[in-house]
């Protein structure tokens, strides 16, 4: 099993011999990884290498794709993710996700954040107010929006919308935050803000990010996994992977020789 060297944090996500098929296409091949808790793990690799597929297995987003077949094991905090007992709604409460394009609901800023907690049964106005404030503060958006929480989420800029989506994910108090190319539609300043936010959040949450931007992985993450053709080629501390990778294919990819 590939395990990042010198990782101090406790492993939270444990993936063993994972194989995933889209019909006859073998998208993930014998993937074994231990993703540590309260750290940022980045998945990198060329298009079609399986990095987003693996990310989506972590909150069972692939369930919705017809013809998907999964073998092997993924356990979060010791609980097998693909067992029949797992309630997908509860799972997604624990594993939040942020996508490439900011996707706020066509509602007010306040209602975007309150949506999840309401869905999970929180009714008290005071409690909701608190959750909205805490979540927006965690996503470093509070100061920018506190005076117009009733405005439409669409009135925000792209970068603000993405931070709103992060706040929305945090509102249901998850353990894990998945970020799928979360900054690729943003300008450099907004990107930097999201990266700084990720750095702040990693003390409280386990963050797994897929990025096409290798330098983002180098800047932000603690561990990096390099995928190629559905396989894990290398998994190590980010500093090691970007300064002295073990596998020649990793070196070739990060040096821009293919991809």
């Amino acid at each position, binding site marked *: 099993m590939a395990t990042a060297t010198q990782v101090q944090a406790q492993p939270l996500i444990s993936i063993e011999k994972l194989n995933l098929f889209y019909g006859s296409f073998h998208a993930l091949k014998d993937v074994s990884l231990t993703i540590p808790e309260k750290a940022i793990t980045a998945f990198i690799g060329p298009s079609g290498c399986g990095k987003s597929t693996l990310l989506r297995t972590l909150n069972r987003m692939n369930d919705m794709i017809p013809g998907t077949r999964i073998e092997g094991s993924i356990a979060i905090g010791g609980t097998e993710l693909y067992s029949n007992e797992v309630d997908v709604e509860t799972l997604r409460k624990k594993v939040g996700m942020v996508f490439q394009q900011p996707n706020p609901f066509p509602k007010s800023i306040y209602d975007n954040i309150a949506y999840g907690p309401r869905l999970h049964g929180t009714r008290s106005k005071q409690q909701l107010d608190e959750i909205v404030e805490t979540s927006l503060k965690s996503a470093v958006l509070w100061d920018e929006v506190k005076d117009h929480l009733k405005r439409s989420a669409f009135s925000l800029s792209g970068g603000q919308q993405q931070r709103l989506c992060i706040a929305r994910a945090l509102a249901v108090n998850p353990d894990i935050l998945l970020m799928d190319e979360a900054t690729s539609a943003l300008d450099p300043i907004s990107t930097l803000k999201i990266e700084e936010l990720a750095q702040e959040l990693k003390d409280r949450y386990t963050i797994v990010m897929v990025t096409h931007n*290798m*330098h983002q992985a*180098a800047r932000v993450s603690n561990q990096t996994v390099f995928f190629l053709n559905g396989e894990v080629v290398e998994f190590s501390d980010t500093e090691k992977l*970007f*300064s*002295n*990778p073990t596998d020649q294919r990793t*070196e070739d990819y*990060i*040096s*821009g*020789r293919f*991809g």
Partner: protein
Amino acid sequence: MMTTRKEFDHGLELLHNLLVEMGHFVDKALEQSMKALSETDTQLAQRIISEDTKLNQLEHDVTELGSKLIATQQPVAKDLRRILSAFKIASDLERMGDLCVNISKLVVRLDGQPLIKPLIDLPRMSAIVQTMTYESIQSFVQENVDLAYKMAADDDQVDALCAQISHELLALMMENPRNISQASILNFVARHIERIGDHATNIGESVVYLVTNSRPDLNR
């Protein structure tokens, strides 16, 4: 991405060529300064001194090009080490050029006076250092760690010759105090050649770092 890599590879090739040019320059400067010494040729010595600005310019070019490549291409892993090593190697070569200038300045100080003894060990020493300089650049060009280690091992001979020359010159000074002035000049020449050898060894260390990402001490 492939276009970027093409530009980057071209930049690395230019960087490479600049270092090779600097290596040839130092090689020639050492050869010429020893010629100036053995023939006590003040004019040649002065020419070597004035030409050193070219070497300084080449080092400047390496720094400029390397910085530009880092800023625009954001290299990682071995690519980054190629540029970091180039900075260090250029700095060593520039210092080697300065030491050749120092030898030439000593030749100027001799002011054409005949040498107190025929030069035997100094040319031998400088020949070894010249080979070391050449091999250090070759080890960089070929990214050849074995050659870097072999070259660095030759530095022991240089150190031994330097110590031997010092003893010999000390004996000459004790024998006749009138020898002191020129003997101390020759002693400095030996010391400068020995330092050039140390810089060649440093280049070997940079090559090992470039290839293996570890920094050995070849100067022991």
